[in-house]
């Protein structure tokens, strides 16, 4: 008995250490970048990429919770980003200068997260009854529905309160002096650009904190038990649907936060960005970085966001090269043949074997 407790304790220590390493990587990354910015050594291109990188890192962590930890394939995460982006941008525009910048941005983040989380619950209840590819297609469908419906919303605010229409801006019947905020397909423009690299890093750390604690908590173990064997989990009394819903909602809320960061980084926002292509892009980060491997998906998000921009000098061949790199990386990382080949190569290099073995343990 004592021995097994000892093992559990050691395991806990190891996860804790692993988690700390992840935080440390993020913080070191932040410090290095800050130093580079302050010494004027970072190009504008890379500086401009910092906030988008944070957006995609958060999105990747959030999707990894569903795909990796909960074991459900979701192709609709862009829909939750869309909800977070629109609700928060609406809020920031509606309040305007009524609140100082920092509290307004914090409130916007909370609103985006809560709204996206609510949608996560609403969508999760029906969706999580399905399995496998059927679940994937339904999440894709929900993502497209959200995008499609948001695209026809007109919303404005004046002294009489909120006006909503789904036809044209004229049907809002706004009082003179009222503010039209959501303009159908034109989306929202003029959102204050509150997102910064620092805010992005803080949000990444918070997201990491939530996810890593969730994973190593009782709930997290229950969620993973459902993933590994649903029937066994059910038979020992784990309420499978409830735990899956928990993971889904938390993930949706975090995707919403990514959306908030996105919408407060650009002067314009429309639904085009939130189609299934963005959902798939985030899924690529997760799969390439390792399903269930939070740190890996973060790194993949950083690289794959920066890569196409770094390839700009290739002009028209840029996306072609990107596609080839993607296929080759997938084959290299996942194909059993490539794996055995890598094993063999590693055995030939004895000094590396030790390092790799050490890493495997971590």
């Amino acid at each position, binding site marked *: 008995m004592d021995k097994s407790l000892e093992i559990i304790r050691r395991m806990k220590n190891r996860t804790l250490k692993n988690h700390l390493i992840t935080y440390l990587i993020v913080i070191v990354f932040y410090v290095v970048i800050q130093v580079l910015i302050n010494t004027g050594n970072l190009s504008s291109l890379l500086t401009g990429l910092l906030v988008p990188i944070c957006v995609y890192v958060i999105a990747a962590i959030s999707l990894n919770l569903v795909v990796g930890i909960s074991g459900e394939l979701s192709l609709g995460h862009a829909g939750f980003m869309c909800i977070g982006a629109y609700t928060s941008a609406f809020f920031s525009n509606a309040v305007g200068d009524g609140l100082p910048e920092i509290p307004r941005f914090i409130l916007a983040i909370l609103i985006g997260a809560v709204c996206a989380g609510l949608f996560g619950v609403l969508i999760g209840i029906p969706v999580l009854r399905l399995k496998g*590819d059927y679940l994937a297609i339904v999440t894709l469908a929900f993502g497209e529905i959200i995008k*499609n419906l948001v695209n026809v919303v007109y919303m404005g605010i004046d002294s009489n309160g909120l006006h909503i229409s789904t036809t044209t801006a004229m049907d809002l019947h706004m009082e003179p002096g009222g503010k039209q905020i959501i303009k159908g397909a034109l989306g929202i423009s003029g959102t204050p650009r509150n997102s910064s690299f620092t805010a992005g890093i803080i949000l990444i750390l918070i997201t990491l904190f939530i996810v890593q604690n969730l994973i190593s908590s009782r709930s997290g173990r229950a969620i993973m038990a459902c993933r590994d064997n649903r029937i066994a989990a059910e038979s020992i009394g784990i309420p499978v649907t409830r735990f899956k819903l928990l993971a889904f909602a938390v993930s949706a809320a975090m995707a919403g936060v990514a959306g908030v960061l996105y919408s407060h980084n650009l002067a314009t926002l429309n639904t085009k960005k939130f189609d299934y292509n963005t959902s798939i892009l985030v899924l690529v980060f997760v799969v390439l970085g390792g399903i269930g491997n939070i740190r890996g998906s973060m790194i993949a998000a950083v690289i794959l966001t920066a890569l196409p921009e770094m390839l700009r000098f290739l002009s*028209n061949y840029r996306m072609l090269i990107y596609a080839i790199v993607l296929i080759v990386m997938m084959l290299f990382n996942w194909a059993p043949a490539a794996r055995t080949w890598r094993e063999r190569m590693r055995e030939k290099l004895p000094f590396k074997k030790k390092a790799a073995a050490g890493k495997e343990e971590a």
Partner: protein
Amino acid sequence: MSFLTYLKDGISLGSVYAIIALGYTMVYGIAKMLNFAHGDVIMVGAYTALMMITRAGLPALPAVLIAMATCTILGITIEMVAYRPLRKAGSPLAVLITAIGVSYLLQNIALLAFGADGKTFINVVSLPSLNLFDGQLVISGVTIVTVLANIVIMICLTLFVKKTKRGRAMQAVSEDRDAAQLMGVNVNGTISLTFAIGSALAAIAGVLLCSAYPVVTPYTGAMPGIKAFVAAVFGGIGSIPGAMIGGILLGVIEILGRAYISSQVADAIVFGVLIIVLLVRPTGLFGKNVQEKV
């Protein structure tokens, strides 16, 4: 009368979805993978046929046959190079992402080869249109050919799967790949054959799609590909009649939704119906009842 017109348009659009969905559903049934690049094979088929007609000056039929041959070779190559190495990768997601990579690759090759400009497609169907009810209902030649092609393809595929040795091998691989292999079925060959058939169908779908809506761009295949995927799921993925009915229903719902509810949220309606169907029947309309899974 306008209702009949809408219905006809819906069936016509749905038939194209159905042909694509047939390819999708066969590949899924056998390889158990969502082939996101399927839509882009359609685009390659359409470009090939167009180039054969305009640049090489071939008549329509040989052009279509060459397009089918090109897509067949393309389909087999993609399967061998990009998908086969990952078949035992442990996660179905790995091959899904590779398929997305292939989709990007095809789109960007087409972009470099043909430019981003849309090319107007030459109608390959020389059939006159049919006038019914004093010209109030016009059925174009393309529509007739599309619907007929759809029915012929479905019947041929069903016969092939049920009656031939190769077809039964497909069924066996789809049921249980390992057991089929133990029984002496050539699994790799069977999967290649499935990709060949699916891609040839994609070429036909590409030509018909672009004949009905005469423009082809590097991104022509993407949305129909997704819609056909939805159609295949709708009908119960893996089921041949399911794919056909799913495709036609999807087309009809899309057109009627656009006509009578709102043209802006037509896609939301399509996806909404899909969700409701899946919630009532979690494996699609024909997913459970139909035995022969290809």
